[in-house]
């Protein structure tokens, strides 16, 4: 199939981005470049973006795969866990030969083979608050693909302090949801009710419906592309999975005026 060459009509991009895509990359991204609202300019802009993905499990693997494939220029993958046999059914970047390896490093190795044209770095450790804060400040966008409440609340707190938009998701059993939190418009994870210890446990206690984490991971990839590509800041929202109806419902996340994290009384 011949590749349709796209010439961008508007040359409003910075000088550093005006070099044409090398031939191989043009071929690599060709199916995306053919989309009616995509262009070489848009691709070059995406290739300048820096993305922090926290957690390379059932959510992080699919999200990272599609974002590396889309051409996000620099992915930083953070995870302190090792690959286990029970991860393989849904953590699609890993093979049996990866068991025992650090997840961030194993994921980075696979992703680099999937897309050799972007930069992929691994942080093979759990990030403490100071390190997390420093990495979040570095990134254009943050994806919370972690599996625990403490990490999610730390990301929520730091992104609120730094006024950074961020995306995340959570799943357990047949229940799950993804979110976009915009600190300047709408509520935060505390407002959603995550400030108290959750009664339901994580995947370890409840199990998890394998396709659901995959779907949530792909939702995050799509939301991230929207954010990175057009930069328009949407109001905070949550997409809730209803297993009974096999569908997602999107709801606005209202701010709690008395929220201890984002409210007017919060010490931000």
């Amino acid at each position: 199939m011949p590749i349709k060459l796209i010439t961008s009509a508007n040359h409003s991009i910075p000088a550093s981005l005006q070099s044409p895509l090398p031939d191989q990359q043009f071929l690599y991204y060709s199916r995306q470049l053919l989309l009616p609202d995509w262009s070489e300019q848009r691709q070059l802009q995406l290739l300048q973006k820096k993305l922090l993905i926290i957690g390379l499990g059932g959510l992080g693997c699919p999200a990272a795969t599609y974002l590396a494939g889309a051409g996000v220029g620099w992915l930083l993958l953070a995870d302190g866990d090792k690959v286990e046999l029970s991860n393989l059914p849904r953590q699609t970047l890993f093979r049996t030969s990866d068991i025992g390896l650090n997840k961030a490093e194993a994921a980075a190795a696979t992703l680099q083979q999937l897309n050799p044209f972007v930069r992929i770095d691994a942080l093979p450790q759990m990030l403490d608050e100071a390190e997390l804060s420093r990495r979040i400040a570095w990134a254009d966008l943050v994806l919370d693909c972690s599996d625990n409440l403490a990490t999610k609340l730390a990301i929520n707190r730091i992104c609120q302090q730094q006024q950074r938009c961020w995306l995340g998701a959570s799943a357990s059993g047949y229940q799950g949801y993804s979110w976009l939190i915009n600190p300047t418009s709408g509520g935060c994870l505390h407002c959603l009710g995550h400030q108290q210890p959750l009664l339901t446990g994580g995947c370890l206690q409840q199990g998890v419906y394998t396709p659901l984490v995959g779907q949530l991971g792909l939702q995050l990839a799509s939301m991230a592309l929207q954010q990175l590509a057009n930069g328009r800041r949407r109001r905070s929202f949550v997409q809730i999975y209803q297993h009974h109806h096999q569908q997602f419902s999107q709801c606005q996340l209202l701010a709690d005026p008395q929220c201890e994290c984002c409210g007017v009384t919060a010490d931000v």
Partner: protein
Amino acid sequence: MSEMIDIYLNGDRLQVAAGMDLQQLQQQFADGQHVAIALNTEIMPRRLWADRSLQARDQVLMFNLVAGG
């Protein structure tokens, strides 16, 4: 007997007493569970639950808060 109204809870129609608020709805259907509630596509902060009375044909989504991935 008090007047009843029809609402939709997680897509299913059911009858509740007129004037019931979100706090009472949670106590009736998810007592002791850690849930969030969306009323007509807006997620309501917990603090507002007791102030929000249900109206006929309201769409309520009640979902468990979880922390896995």
